[in-house]
């Protein structure tokens, strides 16, 4: 199995529901707490497994805001695992999830240097590194209904932009989405082969940007009068 996420950038509205839901579930989960510092101040800081990046593509008026949720990509060639001196970071053979053994991590921070996606964050209270677990304490919990055995962020997403599944199964929902919608990895050129994929935003029909036609004589007079009155 190769479990991971597909995130549809076309429908993600950047509402941050996934980040909050992730924080809520995981702060009381196996890797919790996700410590906050000064959460109600002007300068709140803390550990988040999932952060949304926002950026603009194109030039106005043909521009678009892309909301890009980013968490651990559970890379196949995970450099963060290779560089960990104690072996606290590891990749599970059975499902490909990258995890950190909180009892072995000594908080050297070297793995966070090695991650090109900025997915690893040091909990400066517990002194250990933390990251997305793909809600491992949830997806295998047989006490939950089968439909609930998904990462918290996937269940929460109001626009259904997040999908969870097995990339090794060509007929799974995630494999199908990637195939049909041209899903891609983030920065594949680095060679980490991230498991998570992104579905690209749709290409918008360009908005005409030609200069407006010159106005009639009446409209020019009206414009001159309005300008004079406003003075």
């Amino acid at each position, binding site marked *: 199995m190769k479990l991971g996420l597909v995130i549809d950038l076309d429908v993600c509205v950047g509402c941050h529901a996934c*980040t909050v839901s992730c924080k809520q579930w995981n702060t009381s989960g196996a890797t919790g707490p996700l410590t906050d510092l000064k959460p109600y101040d002007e300068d709140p800081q803390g550990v988040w497994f999932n952060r949304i*990046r926002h950026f603009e593509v194109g030039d106005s008026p043909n521009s678009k805001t892309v909301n*890009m949720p980013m968490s651990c990509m559970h890379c196949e060639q995970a450099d963060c695992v290779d560089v960990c001196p*104690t072996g606290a970071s590891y990749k599970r053979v059975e499902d490909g999830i990258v995890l950190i053994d909180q009892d072995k991590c000594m*908080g050297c*921070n070297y793995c966070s*240097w090695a991650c090109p*996606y900025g997915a690893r964050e*040091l909990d400066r209270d517990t002194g250990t590194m933390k990251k997305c677990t793909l809600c491992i304490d949830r997806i295998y919990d047989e006490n939950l209904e089968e439909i609930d055995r998904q990462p918290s962020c996937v269940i929460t997403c109001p626009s259904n932009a997040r999908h969870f599944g097995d990339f090794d199964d060509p007929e799974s929902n995630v494999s199908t989405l990637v195939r049909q919608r041209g899903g891609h990895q983030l920065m594949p050129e*680095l060679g980490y082969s991230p498991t998570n994929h992104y579905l690209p935003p749709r290409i918008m029909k360009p908005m005409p940007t030609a200069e407006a036609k010159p106005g009639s004589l009446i409209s020019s007079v009206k414009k001159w009068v309005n300008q004079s009155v406003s003075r």
Partner: protein
Amino acid sequence: MQRTDFHEIEISSRRFYSILVTLAGVLVAAAYAFFYMESQGHFVTGMNNQVVWGLPHVVAIFLIVTASGAANVASLGSVFNKPAYQPYGRISLVLAMSLLLGGLLVILLDLGHADRLIIAMTHFNFDSVFAWNILLYSGFFVIMGLYLWSIMDRTATAKRCYQPLAYLGFVWRFILTAGTGSIFGVLVAREYYDILMMAPLFIASSYLIGTACFSLVLLLLYKLEGRQLSEVIKSRLAISLCLCIVVVTLIELARHLLNYFIMGYTAVEVFVLRDAGAVTLMFWLGQVVIGLVLPIILLYLPSVKRSRLAIASTLIMLGGLCQLYVIIIGGQLQPLRLFPNAVTETSGNLDIAYSASLPELMLSLGGVAITLFVFTIAVKVLRLTPANS
């Protein structure tokens, strides 16, 4: 051949204990800083999710790199068979071990979980450069300790081991410094480090800073004893420093040019060399002017004779510290380039600024203090100082 006699450093007990008490005061402050950071968490440091290695790491790596270079004089005497350096081999090795001890203690005490070092010592991940470095640092103590024994002991066994241990020590230093540089050189994810030039740069810098540190310490020891260091050794050390400055300058230049023109990492180069504020100032003023240009002028100018080696060595060490600050902090301050050509905003607060906090500064000074503390005791109780050189 003239036989060299060695003695314990001849300073008054009052002076000796006052040095130790001063250093102990710094160590107490460093211990307080460590326990403060342990109890409050790393929130009290200036480090954050973007800048994960701060001033303590800069100082620790500075001490480690200097340690490797400080043993240079011992290698010159034994491996390269330069008799002029041989009387100073003992001091060179003890200084190297003291520096490494100081550097490792700072790194250890700045870990998120310092108590878990035992895991790093017992669970090696052999894919990790970091784990390899733990082995290299541990091995350094053993090899340098044995090397020192082979120099100090006058038995036949020790004499037989002397040359092999000298060669082993030389090779080990070479690998250790390359390994320390590779901690950064293998980081593909960070544009400022993704270049294997880091290993030769660290080797050259270690020779430069280590030799400067040794020169300064030797001059201080002689001054404490009220003796004059011979002009021959001063001149030789000055020439070594000049050569190292040229090599470091060339490698540093090659690294930046390769990064900019071949690797295509223009953004991070422009950031560090032009836009990074204090880090940029540290590069141009600290590393280039103070660390490379001024020392070579001082060492070459015939008119500036008096104390020129001491001043040049001090400047080189300051420049070396700036160099490591620029490499470690500067490289982290450049945000990850996730989306080229796009201005990105991020949910949550991801700081990309860094300023060292007081506990970090105290811990860092503690590393220097423990180095000097151990070295001072060693030169007082062991026969390390040549009597007639």
